[in-house]
């Protein structure tokens, strides 16, 4: 059944929904949960991890729930149609897992007040729309520290997707981590203007390495940059999932998105009738962000990374603790102060030390 649905999802996303709907129409009393993915579940990155969360739901609740998904839904009118179709099929709860699904989700949610919606990485909520995201920047601070400790050239390359706050925040967190070790650390950022294009991501990695960086990190979805790092004999970090198998000798660690616990708690809330519209932004403490094992590192560096990780997890330390200066030299927060969540969520500037201009 899954395989057929998957094939059709490729052939025609809407047909897949119709098929799934008819297949499940006979069921009663089960909580029906739908997922909308922006990419293919086979990207081994963002959508893959959300699908792992869906599978964890099936594992946890077994017969009490039914789940289904539609993959490769583009952000735009298609998204609204697909979400509405799921709503009409009688789903009790719908997860929309990309920033660009924000407005379509709210529009559909207005028409179906009884259905619970969960939108990932957005900031608009309603009585039946919750938002959730992860504090990936916590992981980026840790890998920034590691990068500065193992880099010989003192320069890292960063493959970035789109200049949205989420990505900019990651770059800044990485840089703050690196500067905590080496104040003169340099970062070269290349924007590829795509979330997923293995070839282009690899090309960007090669260009960065050819220009002298000896650490590669990325905010795009495929394992290609890490593979290039391995091939060129330098180190790098995985993204979204543990990519160690692509680079057994090059991956230092990976920031892993884990949605399992959140999804299980939210579905449980729907089943108990206690679901409320909330805004969740969890990090290491909520187990929404996890670090893949620290590998290919000197023992002391791995141990220090684990210490940083623990101090962030326990809340003892916040990666955006002052003094922090913006790129233009103005003070963002004074010594000891912490950048508030609102500023983090709307971050549209580089911190001091990042080279180049932030595209708008």
């Amino acid at each position, binding site marked *: 059944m899954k395989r057929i649905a998957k094939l059709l999802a490729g052939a025609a996303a809407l047909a897949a929904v119709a098929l799934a709907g008819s297949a499940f129409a006979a069921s009663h009393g089960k909580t029906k949960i739908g997922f909308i993915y922006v990419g293919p579940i086979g990207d081994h990155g963002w959508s893959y991890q959300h699908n792992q969360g869906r599978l964890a739901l099936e594992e946890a609740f077994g017969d009490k729930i039914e789940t289904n998904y539609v993959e490769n839904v583009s952000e735009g009118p298609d998204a609204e149609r697909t979400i509405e179709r799921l709503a009409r099929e009688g789903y009790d709860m719908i997860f929309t897992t990309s920033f660009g699904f924000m407005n379509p989700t709210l529009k559909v949610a207005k028409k179906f007040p009884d259905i619970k919606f969960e939108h990932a990485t957005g900031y608009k909520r309603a009585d039946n729309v919750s938002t959730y995201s992860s504090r990936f920047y916590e992981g980026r601070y840790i890998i920034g520290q590691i990068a500065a400790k193992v880099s010989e050239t003192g320069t890292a390359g960063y493959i970035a997707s789109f*200049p949205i706050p989420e990505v900019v925040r990651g770059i800044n967190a990485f840089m703050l981590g690196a500067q905590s070790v080496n104040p003169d650390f340099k970062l070269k950022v290349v*924007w590829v203007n795509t979330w997923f294009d*293995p070839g282009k991501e690899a090309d960007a990695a090669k260009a960065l390495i050819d220009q002298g960086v000896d650490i590669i990190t990325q905010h795009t979805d495929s394992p*290609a940059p890490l*593979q290039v790092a391995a091939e060129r004999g330098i180190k790098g970090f995985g993204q979204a999932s543990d990519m160690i198998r692509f680079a057994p000798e090059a991956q230092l660690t990976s920031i892993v998105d884990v949605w399992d616990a959140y999804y299980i708690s939210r579905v449980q809330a729907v089943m108990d009738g206690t679901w409320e519209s909330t805004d969740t932004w969890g990090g290491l403490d909520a187990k929404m962000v996890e670090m893949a094992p620290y590998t290919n590192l000197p023992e002391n560096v791995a141990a220090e990374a684990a210490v940083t990780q623990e101090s962030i997890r326990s809340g003892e330390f916040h990666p955006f603790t002052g003094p922090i200066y913006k790129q233009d030299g103005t003070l963002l927060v004074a010594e000891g102060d912490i950048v508030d969540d609102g500023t983090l969520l709307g971050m549209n500037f580089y911190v001091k030390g990042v080279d*180049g201009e932030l595209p708008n």
Partner: protein
Amino acid sequence: MEIYEAIILTIITAATPLLLAACGELVAERAGILNLGVEGMMIMGAVGAFAVAFSTGSPYLGIAAGIGAGALASLPFAFLTISMVTNQVATGLALTILGLGLSGMIGDAYIGQPGVKLQPINIQGLSDLPYVGRILFSQDVIVYASIVLLVLVWIFLFKTRAGLSLRAVGDSHSSAHALGVSVRKVRYMAVIFGGACAGLAGAYLSLVYTPQWTEGMTAGRGWIAVVLVVFATWMPGRLLAGAYLFGAVLILQLHAQAAGVNIPSQFLSSLPYLATIIVLVLISRNRTLVKKNSPACLGKPFVPDV
């Protein structure tokens, strides 16, 4: 390694899959068949090549599988458009959608598996030559094949009788038919050749460019190939120029960013498309020549009078 060597090596990698896929599409279009399924055939080639190379450990068997998968994927298209005379545009789009979906299903088992990389050939002595050694004499077999293939296609189309027949089929299928040329047979061969080339391009992606399988990894390269053929006005030489120009601008804009050149990245990202289209339009601005080169029966259905 000097920086220019590194840049040229990367440009070759970026241009090769485009050149291969476009080369096949050029032959199909010269025979009068517009196949918009290049993206679908390419990704079938990518998954086929990955699956076989992964299972057998041999990238060369993988290449063969990629070619086979691409050719196989073109068969239903050939049957529908040539024998059943369906609309070529719609059928081609269907082939792309089918290829993307089917490859995802076949590739399900290979997600997260590291691939087998096709290694470059090292020619004793030549590969170590200064300046040009690494660029000219240390490529993998598919890169050499792409250039040889293009030259062979040019010779075939313009220097052989069979090539003349193929062009006749594309220019005026009724006249070719009246002269005793089997229009359908020629078109079948051309479409299958196009599929095989797209499959080889896909194999290059999953064995050399990025040795891995991820769904949708062609990321629109099939469409760029289709566009290159049109803007190269169905001329192999211009196709070569177009593919390498596209690759060059793509790589150079990444280097410009890495070097800290302050140009908006959105503009830089669109630059390969803009530059290639502008240059190819400029070199093809002679309208009579364009008219002479465009296959007059491109996309038109052929039903022989019985």
